[in-house]
């Protein structure tokens, strides 16, 4: 799909304020409501605008500890990645799974209610994941910027 400057502008406004009604969005982008709606529909149909998702504040649900766990896997095992990822998906406290090209193979973002809960998760679930060669942990102190916006 060809994405033009108007599409980018629409997505930029929508990204900055996902609650913006189509009428206001059209106004800002200098389009009629019908054109604006048609363009958004097309971006949705083509999968460029995948979804609008609710943001859940895990701290408000009592999950105050957040840790970034970085794994190096034992790559001599042929199915190390698949088996590790399958097992990681079964841990509900894992909120993100990323694989990388670099010194780190896989990163898991994990949340816990408190340090005792984290310790229990770490021992009973994380250390049980298959093919781990090494783990490093980065504990979140604070989110400085977290909009994950694209520079459109």
């Amino acid at each position: 799909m060809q994405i033009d400057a108007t599409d980018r502008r629409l997505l930029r406004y929508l990204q900055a304020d996902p609650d913006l009604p189509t009428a206001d969005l059209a106004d800002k982008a200098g389009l009629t409501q019908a054109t604006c709606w048609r363009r958004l529909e097309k971006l949705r149909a083509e999968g460029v605008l995948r979804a609008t998702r609710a943001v859940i504040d895990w701290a408000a649900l009592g999950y105050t500890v957040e840790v970034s766990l970085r794994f190096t896997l034992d790559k001599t095992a042929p199915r190390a990645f698949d088996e590790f990822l399958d097992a990681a998906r079964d841990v509900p406290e894992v909120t993100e799974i990323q694989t990388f090209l670099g010194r780190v193979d896989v990163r898991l973002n994990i949340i816990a209610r408190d340090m005792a809960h984290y310790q229990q998760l770490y021992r009973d679930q994380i250390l049980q994941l298959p093919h781990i060669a090494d783990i490093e942990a980065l504990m979140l102190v604070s989110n400085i910027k977290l909009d994950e916006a694209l520079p459109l």
Partner: protein
Amino acid sequence: MTPLDEIDRQILRILSEDATQSAGAIGRKLDMSQPATWRRIKRLQDDGILTGRRVDLDQEALGFGVTVFLGVKLATKGRVSLEDFERAVSAIPEVQSVQHVLGLYDYRLRVVARDIADFERVLRRRIMTMPGVGNVEANVLLSEERRPGPI
């Protein structure tokens, strides 16, 4: 805050997939009336559990082919104010998130770029030139999954 029950959890799961659905549509899925569903959503908002919405875009289709996670260690702590570093790094448009962490690095950055050459430009001209930046580790994202979390 009242503890969540199974219906609250289902509402959170549904909204984290697609937050554009009306209370009526969600209610039908859960066999609940529109007003009862609306009241629950309202309570989740009032309790600060549902904090807002975000759009999920196909970044590759929009020309951003590369995402890199950077671990940044500050070289000269004390001489560089953390606030100054945080303000400067947050102002870079390609830097999508900045997290202050404890461990091997001081900060975790998520950086998006058009391609590797574009990433190199951002890294060399914008990030490495910032005062106090010491050791930097880059890992190029190959795949990513967002999980629903413990709900």
